[in-house]
């Protein structure tokens, strides 16, 4: 999906919980906070963390200059299973 959107000329960035999968699938731009699958954009109701993840992810649109990079983000949420 990300690649399809990118192919029509729209830049994309993906928030990944599973960076190896994202790398394998050829994501052009991605960030990777330390989050479980299902809370990619951060802990439920943690507005501060979610804002940080979304803001830092968007900022990478202006920073990244070549495809295939996955930028680790300094946020951590461990779900209580």
């Amino acid at each position: 999906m990300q690649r399809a959107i990118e192919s029509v000329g729209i830049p994309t960035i993906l928030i990944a919980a599973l960076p190896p999968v994202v790398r394998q699938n050829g994501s052009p731009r991605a960030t990777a906070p330390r989050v479980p699958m299902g809370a990619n954009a951060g802990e439920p109701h943690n507005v501060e963390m979610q804002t940080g993840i979304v803001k830092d992810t968007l900022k990478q649109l202006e920073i990244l200059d070549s495809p295939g990079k996955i930028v680790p983000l300094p946020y951590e949420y461990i779900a209580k299973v």
Partner: protein
Amino acid sequence: MSLKKYDGLQSEIYVPITPQPVWAPVTKELKDMKIGIATAAGVHLKSDKRFNLAGDTSYREIPWDTKSDDLMVSHGGYDNSDVNKDINCMFPIDRLRELAKAGFIKGLAPVEYGFMGGGGDIEAFTDKTGPEIAQKLKAEDVDAVIMTAG
């Protein structure tokens, strides 16, 4: 020294192949960008048809001003408990609206897109669903797309 060559010789070990890079350059500053959301997390309006959890390559449109309480998830491929508590975990629409209000971005795309990723009929996603969503985003002059998947 000359090396012996065998045409068509290949490793018996499976080697994963990463697809060719794709890249659309960023030409605007964030404050001038209309940002769309596309998520593989199975997000859709509560009033919409649910995804078929056994495999579904369709997608749902979500207007930018939808209340987060009017959204839900149907996806058979991950633990939905966090996203059921707060849709913003996978679909940060409230956060993006706040960022637009604060002037960090120009605004949201008029329509956001939800689909059920995590496998299934990859060919249909690659050849149909993906290009369809991409064309719609392009027609609406969306400047960049933030995604949650993987």
